[in-house]
Structure formats: C-alpha cells, structure tokens
C-alpha cells in the first residue's frame, strides 16, 4: 500500500489534492481511500489529508502515521509543531516540499530527513492563474507523478474534483495545464511501496488521574494569543499603499484576526505578527490600496 500524507494550510488545497490523488488512483483500477483532518475550520490553520492507494482492500482508517510520501504545501509547516509534519518520517520517506529552494538548499536549511524533492508550485500558480488561489491541482499532480500514476488520470481527476467544488471551466483548464507542468517538472525520488514493519512495543497504561475536583478540561492560563505569532501562516502578505487609501476602514472591519489597527492619521496599519495572510483586506479594499506581496523566506521574519 502507498500511504501519502499532505500538509497544507487551510485554503491551500491539501484536502482537494488528496482527493485528486485518490480519484486518479481509483480511475487506474487501484483501491483508494482519502480523507482530511482539521480542527476548527480556519483559513491558514494547519490541515492534513491522507490518500491510501493499494491493489488489495485497504484495512486502515484515519491518520497516516507512517507515510511513504509526504507532500508539503508550505515550507512554514515544517517548523510548526501543530502540523506534526515530521511524524513518522525517516530516511526512506519521500518528502516533497513546495519551495523555490533546491533539495540540497532545503536540506541545509531545515535538516529534514527523507528523500527530498522540491518544486516552486507557488510561482507556477501565480504565473498560470495570475491570482493567488489554491494549489490543490499542482500538489495532486506532483503526488501522482511520485507514486507513478499516469498524467491522463491526474488530468481527469483535476477536472472532476475542481468541478465538484464549482470551479469554472476556464480555471479548471488552467489548473490542468499547470498541473501537467508540475507533473513533468518535479524531480523524481523513489517512493517505497510499503514501509509497514512490525508494530513497535507499547503497553497499555491507565492514566493516573487528578482528583475528581479537577475533572474537567479547563484552561486557567491568562490570555495568551498575543504571544502566538501567525507570521508563518502567510504565503502572501497585504501591504498598504497609503497614497491610495481613502480611510474607509473596511480592511480594519473585515480582518478576522484583528491584525489591522487604525493609526492617529486615520489610516490602517497591518500588525504582521498576527496577520495570517488571508488577504480579506485586499478583497474588500475599494481603492486597491491594499496590495499583495509574495512572502519569501527572507521577508518572513515578522
């Protein structure tokens, strides 16, 4: 069985990528299973999705703890403990990361284990779509290539899954084009067919409980969201051009994270440590004063 785990941020398309891979494998006659897992549905929050592909019936469910291939949509997930991206990865695991870095550069920067491969999907998406959309088709195509599925199956799966999401035909075609490009461009690494060994030793342990007076899930720590930076969630950042701003405050009112404040001069300011890069402010800005810049590793310090 081939077990593929996708990591993305809410809105990037990890779930749809897992479905594209599942649909493509199924169309080639394999048994397939795909599923996502996420907490509160929140743009930018870590999301995982799983695709299992086999010739025999699949007798597993839920999370994949020992993947043969890990597909990472955003390099910031590598260092995010909540994403659990490193779980179950060893030197035999194939790991694809959406990054402009080469595998050697990435290895040097992150000391990721596994058989690394990279491709800059974000640049391809920006070039092909001319907008910042989900990269699900690209992730699905890369995964499909690495596990050995045919390009036509990926092509059909992209069309089917994006149509199910209500994506219009022309954008589907551009996704197919970009996906085919990624399919062909991704540097290949071997993907093991099965890494399942004997289960490791474990022992059942009944918990030692707090007394019944401490018997409910409660949090007594004070407010702490201020110390949680969400800079790493961004693929793009909003940047204000004050000369175009009419001071309407729509960005301030629409920011879901309260990351925009109003300065004494009546103009907004983005507080980047709490900006997760959803770009809602860009969408609502009536004068296009809120512009978009791509995050790079160099700029992503705040």
């Amino acid at each position, binding site marked *: 069985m081939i077990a593929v785990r996708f990591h993305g941020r809410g809105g990037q398309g990890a779930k749809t990528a897992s479905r594209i891979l599942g649909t493509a494998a199924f169309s080639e006659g394999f048994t397939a299973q795909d599923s996502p897992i996420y*907490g509160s549905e929140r743009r930018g929050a870590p999301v995982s999705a799983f695709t299992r592909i086999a010739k025999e019936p699949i007798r597993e469910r839920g999370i994949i703890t020992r993947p043969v291939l890990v597909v990472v949509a955003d390099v910031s997930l590598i260092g995010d403990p909540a994403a659990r991206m490193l779980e179950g990865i060893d030197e035999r695991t194939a790991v694809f990361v959406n990054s402009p870095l080469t595998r050697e550069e990435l290895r040097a920067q992150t000391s990721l284990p596994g058989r690394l491969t990279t491709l800059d999907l974000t640049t391809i998406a920006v070039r092909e779509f001319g907008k910042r959309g989900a990269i699900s088709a690209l992730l699905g195509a890369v995964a499909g290539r690495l596990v050995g599925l045919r390009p036509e199956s990926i092509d059909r799966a992209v069309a089917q899954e994006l149509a199910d999401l209500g994506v219009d035909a022309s954008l589907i075609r551009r996704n197919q084009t970009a996906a085919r490009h990624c399919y062909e461009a991704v540097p290949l690494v071997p993907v093991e067919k099965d890494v399942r060994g004997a289960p490791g030793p474990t022992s059942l342990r009944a*918990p030692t*409980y707090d007394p*019944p*007076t401490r*018997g*409910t*899930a*409660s949090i*007594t720590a004070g407010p702490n969201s201020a110390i949680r930076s969400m800079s790493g969630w961004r693929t793009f950042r909003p940047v204000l051009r004050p000369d175009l701003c009419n001071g309407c405050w729509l960005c301030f009112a629409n920011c879901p994270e309260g990351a925009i404040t109003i300065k004494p001069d009546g103009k907004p300011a983005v507080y980047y440590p709490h900006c997760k890069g959803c770009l809602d402010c860009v969408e609502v800005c009536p004068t296009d004063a809120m512009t978009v810049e791509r995050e790079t590793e160099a700029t992503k310090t705040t």
Partner: protein
Amino acid sequence: MTAQMMTGNLAAAWGARLADVDYVPAFPITPQTEIVETLSKWCGTGELNARFVTLDSEHSMMTAAGAAAATGARVFTATSSQGLLHALEVLYTVAGWRAPLVLVNVSRALASPITLEPDHNDVLAARDSGFVQVHAETCQEVVDSILMAYRIAEDPLVCLPVVVNLDGFVLSFTREPVWLPEAQAVRAFLPPFRPTHLGFKASTPQALGTAVLGGSTYSYFRHQIHLASVNALQVHEQAAAEFERCFGRRYDVVEGYRIEDAEDILVMSNAFASKGKAAVDAAREQGRRVGLLRLRMIRPWPADAVRRALRGRRAVAVLDQNLSPGQGGILYQEIAACLYHDVARPRALCSFIGGLGGKNISEAEFHAVFEQTAEAGIQGQGGGPVLLYTEAEYREMEQLQFLAHDLKTGR
C-alpha cells in the same frame, strides 16, 4: 416530626427547599410543572432564599443550571420527558463540566404517539450522560433522595450532577404521607456548599469544557468521569448511613423485598415497585417463594449489589417499564451483563415489558410473570421480552381503532 399529605412534586420541591438551594432555573412541562410553581411561590414569599429564573427552554435551563453550579452555587432544577430530551446534549455537557447540581425528572413516556403518563425511556435516554441516577418509589423517597443527591453530587470523590427520578401521575400527582425532616437537622446532614474548587473571579478568567482534539485528551476526561461515577457507589453508602443516623430511614443502592429465602426474584424500579411488592405478598400466600429487587441507583450501576441479591436464585424476571425498539428491555440487558461472570448465576433470566405509557400492571399480570418465571427456572430456559398486555386491554384497543377510522370507507 409529623407527617403530612403531599404529592411527589411537592416532595421534590421540599427537597430543594430543605437543601437550601441558591438557584433554580425553570421551564414548565406536565407532569413536572407543580415543582417549579411551588419553588417560584416560595422564592416569592422568601421561604426559600434562592434566585428563581424562567428560561426559554429546557436546553437553556440546563445550560443555566450547569453554569451556575460551575460557579459554586447549589442548583436545583426539574423537567420531564420531552423536556429532558430537549436538554439531552446539555446533560452530557454539564456532566463534563463536573457541575454538581441536582435535577429531578418526572418520568413521562416519550412521543410518538403522545402521552402524559409515565415510563422510563425518558430518564434512561440520559443513562450515559454522566449524571448519577437515583429512581424513587415513594414521595418520601423523593425528598430524602434529593437531600442525599446533593451529598453525593458535591462529594469531592464524585463532583457529578445527579438526576432523581419519580414517576409522573402515580407519584408526581399522588399524595401520601411524607415526614419532612427539620431544616436544622438537614443543615447538619447537608451543610451549605462552599467548594474551593469551583467558582469564577473576574481577575482569573478560565475556560471550562474546552475543545480537545486528537482523542487522547478526550479519552482521559471521559474515563475520569466514569471512575468518579463509580465512586458514587461508595459515597452513596456513606450518605445512606449518615442519613439513617440523622433521620432514621435507610436507602441502599438496591432494595430487597422478601428476597432472603426467595427462589425467584422480580426486578423492578420506581413507583410500580410498590405494586410488585404487593404481588410478591400475594404470590407468597399461594406458596411461591418469590421476592422483589428494586433498583434505586441506575448510574453508577450497582453491579456488586445486584449480583449479591440475584446469585444462586432459580430464576430472575426483569420487568422493564421501558422499551428499546429492536432490543427489548434496557435494564434486562444490564442485569444479564452483570450476572454473566457469576458462577452461581440464575438458571433462567426472563424479560418482561410492562407499564409502557403508564399502562397499569394488574395483579393477574404479576401472577403471570411469577408463573412464567418459575417455569423458566424449572426448565433452565429464560426468554422474552414478553409484553404485559391483557385480553381486556386488547379488546379496548380494537374498539379504539374502530372509532379512529372512517366507518363508511374503512380507511
């Protein structure tokens, strides 16, 4: 102490009054309404120094009750039937909050079809919520059980809400003599609630019952609730001993009636157990060695007490006043499960369903139960579920069906 005539509902209200509760969130429903009406009146006159609030539904009512209890207030509320089910998701929630409130449920069968009279599908729907469950047979037991319920709920070994169940109509609207304890004596048995582990302060905010993902945290807390519930067996024992010392009445988790030398035992719960006891007396006069085991505490499940009472018997009949469609009697399953590992388990275990929607259980039906159970014991072959339903009741049913349909067209 003198006895006075009062309904089960009034007894329930007295239980709350004697417990000197702080907060009563309320919503009316037949046959429970008299309880909250009475408490409302007493709050108005000042006879009960509590905050009485009417809510927009039982769902809100239980939420308010749980929230108030989580602040450390002593909370009482009451509902019935559809109301209990409307509050059902909140029952799980407030049990998870470990809110030590007391809820009275006045049993009434669930729709559909609609009825007002009792059976126990309502309270048993809340069986797995984490609430401790105590089921009362008499009006006296209602008031006494409420006082004991606060002792159990508030005990540091338990910290769980308790539901005290009484049957609609046959107890809720039925007057019988009740000895009310003196308020002073109750204060000794049940001192004011001053928990150090509950409460909110503006300067120390906290989130209660927070979201936990991944399953391991959830498992930890749910299993912790299970163990706390099991602790309630031992805490009940202490409360019962103390209650007996203070007031002279003794309540155990199960009550055996003439079981010492009984060959066959009938298991029942709630108010109709009184009729079961009369049936035991009648059967004994005919030479049958039978007894009755009444289940008082349903959660935690008093497995040891049930086993002690039932092991070595020839046959046991469980008369469920409830029905799980597609399965049968709910308590029958629990009795069967806890007897399975006992080497001296009864030769036969018989399931009877009776009193659904408050249907009467006649002497003749009890007679049939004892007869079939004895036969099953002799054969070593239990069975069921058998519905208790008489020839006369079936004829009445036929008449009603005739009247309910168009006489000309037959539709």
